[in-house]
């Protein structure tokens, strides 16, 4: 209903665990407080003091008394999925309340839901909501082989002809371009699956010039092209200058030294905090979604709430050098 994006940890108990497919466990958890969830939400599970993993919520009780998650055992697991697959009813663990980075919106003329492998865990409940609403939707489920694909029986039962399977080992490989060829400008497209599949869809989507807001997938924020590093910040026509540390934004640095700047969202969306870059030694690491790609490439303005400056030396994994000699500088031009 109103799950947020901030972490709120609580204890939960494992109610059941069963195999939903080869290598995929379906685990039902009950929290000490109600776990209200909605399609597209995930919970974070603390595997070890310094290890947290996110798992999509397959479904949850309306009264919040339980949530069901799906966990794939990764062959390269560093402990997360192995830990989850070893859980037994009655085991306790620490979880967050459901977090929403991938909300479904009702009201679009048409929907395409694309799930690859364990991605079905996030897509399953979206399909159920759209069915209950009588929406026009298509559910495409891509997998290596049928035994590796979770929930096949119930998906068939609930969605009938709206479900399309694409099974690799049956020689039925999804034709992404062909699929997007049938998508029009009003269709909302939700996807969850392997990066390679999602990249193929993203590329074909851009090629078709379909509206970007209609392509929905779970994002974990724009983390930029460069690791955050410290850089020097100057103000044109002012003596004031400071060093912005890696864990501080330009906006915070401006506030710290008493320069009044306009801002609102503080997450790179609204564009109220845009300031002209007067002089630049380094490159701007644009981390906003306000500027277009073309605007970002000119490096003349930036959203000071999220964007940073990186020294060229530090790009693409250059070796550590003396930070003072390579430190980038930025001079802002406030009108």
């Amino acid at each position, binding site marked *: *209903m109103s799950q947020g994006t901030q972490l709120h940890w609580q204890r939960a108990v494992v109610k059941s665990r069963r195999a939903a497919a080869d290598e995929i466990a379906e685990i039902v958890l009950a929290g000490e407080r109600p776990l209200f969830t909605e399609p597209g939400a995930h919970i974070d599970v603390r595997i070890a003091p310094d290890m947290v993993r996110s798992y999509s919520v397959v479904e949850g009780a309306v009264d919040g008394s339980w949530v069901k998650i799906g966990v794939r055992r990764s062959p390269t697991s560093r402990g997360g999925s192995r830990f989850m697959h070893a859980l037994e009813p009655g085991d306790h663990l620490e979880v967050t309340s459901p977090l929403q980075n991938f909300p479904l*919106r009702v009201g679009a003329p048409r929907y395409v839901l694309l799930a690859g492998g364990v991605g079905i865990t996030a897509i399953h409940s979206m399909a159920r909501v759209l069915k209950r609403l009588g929406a026009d939707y298509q559910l495409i489920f891509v997998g290596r082989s049928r035994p590796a694909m979770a929930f096949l029986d119930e998906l068939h039962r609930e969605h009938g002809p709206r479900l399309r399977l694409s099974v690799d080992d049956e020689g039925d490989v999804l034709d992404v371009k062909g699929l997007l060829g049938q998508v029009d400008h009003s269709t909302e497209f939700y996807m969850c699956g392997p990066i390679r599949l999602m990249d193929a869809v993203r590329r074909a989507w851009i090629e078709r010039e379909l509206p970007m807001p209609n392509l929905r997938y779970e994002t974990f924020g724009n983390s930029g092209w460069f690791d955050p590093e410290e850089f020097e910040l100057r103000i044109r026509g002012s003596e004031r200058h400071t060093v912005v540390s890696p864990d501080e934004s330009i906006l915070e640095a401006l506030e710290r030294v008493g320069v009044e700047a306009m801002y609102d969202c503080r997450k790179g*969306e609204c564009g109220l905090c845009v300031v002209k870059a007067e002089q630049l030694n380094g490159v701007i690491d644009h981390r906003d979604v306000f500027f277009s790609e073309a605007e970002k490439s000119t490096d003349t303005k930036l959203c000071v709430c999220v964007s940073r400056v990186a020294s060229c030396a530090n790009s693409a994994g250059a070796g550590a050098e003396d930070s003072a000699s390579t430190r980038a500088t930025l001079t802002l031009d406030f009108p």
Partner: protein
Amino acid sequence: MTDLSPSGATAKNMAYPLNAWYVAGWDHEVNRKKILSRKIADRPMALYRTEEGRPVALTDACWHRLAPLSMGSLVGPDGVQCPYHGLQYNSAGRCTFMPAQKTINPSAMVNSFPVVERHRFIWVWPGDPMLADAALIPDMHQMGSDEWAGDGKTIDVRANYQLVLDNLMDLTHEEFLHSSSIGQKELSESDIEVTHDDRTVTVTRFMENIDAPPFWLKNMRDKFPDFEGKVDRWQIIEFQMPSTICIDVGVAKAGTGGLTGDRSQGVNGYVMNTISPVDQANAMYYWAFMRNYRLESQRITTELRDGVHGVFAEDEEMLTAQQQAIVDNPDHEFYNLNIDAGGMWVRRLIQRAVEAERTMLASDADLSDAKG
């Protein structure tokens, strides 16, 4: 005053569940000629149709500065444009255009409420869209059936929706309020039977071997032109959550089986009522009178619609006055009579739904606080 005792229901409850379907308008009222503005359960909505004919309900306030979208215009195959600064939204409520910038803030959106067109009405779900289920829309199939004919109107009533439900769940009032049309003393002389389940309440009243009141005598003579004599009369009131009441009404020649299943010697109507709360003190009351005889006669359709309209005007006057008296007497409770059994079951079902939503919201609020 609104505490729900374990067994009871407080008479003066005026709250409404949000996770429910309410009518936002007649099918013909939602179109591409103009954007309809209606408030349902305290939520202002802008209603229109896409080029494909699908009804859409968006929050009637632009994300940017809350200008009413209903004052704007339709754009593209399924969108609207704000009249103030030109922001555009698609039917999912996503912003698709912003002035003076190349990109669109991904947070910019307005609510798109679940909408279903059924039974000649546009139904909306003001609560959590993820819980909306079209299967929960009340059964009003007579509205769209070849076997029934009729029409209705809308009453913009200055009263809480619960007062309209009370009115329809107890028809004893017909004897006093509608004495010139459908009222008669046998109404209060006959017993009622009340049954219920989780989502419905039914009140049944039979009156045997009585004179037909003027409204019913006219209907009998539409079907049986030479009709004289006594009738058996039935009223079967069925409430469906959260605010729809369909009343199976009619009379048949006395002793011909009208009350036991053979209605061939009678006339049968269905009074279709569905009430949408606007806010605490206002409701939109949609009704129609459907009949299953003389389907070919548009004259009868019009006469029945206008006749019932006249009857309901008497109800509207009373409901408005009652609402005003409630406001003017805030310390006074309602007291109940035996005849209120149907209405009190309705209140209990509604209050359960409202309490369940409050519990969910309270837990959610706790979480938000904890997140702080």
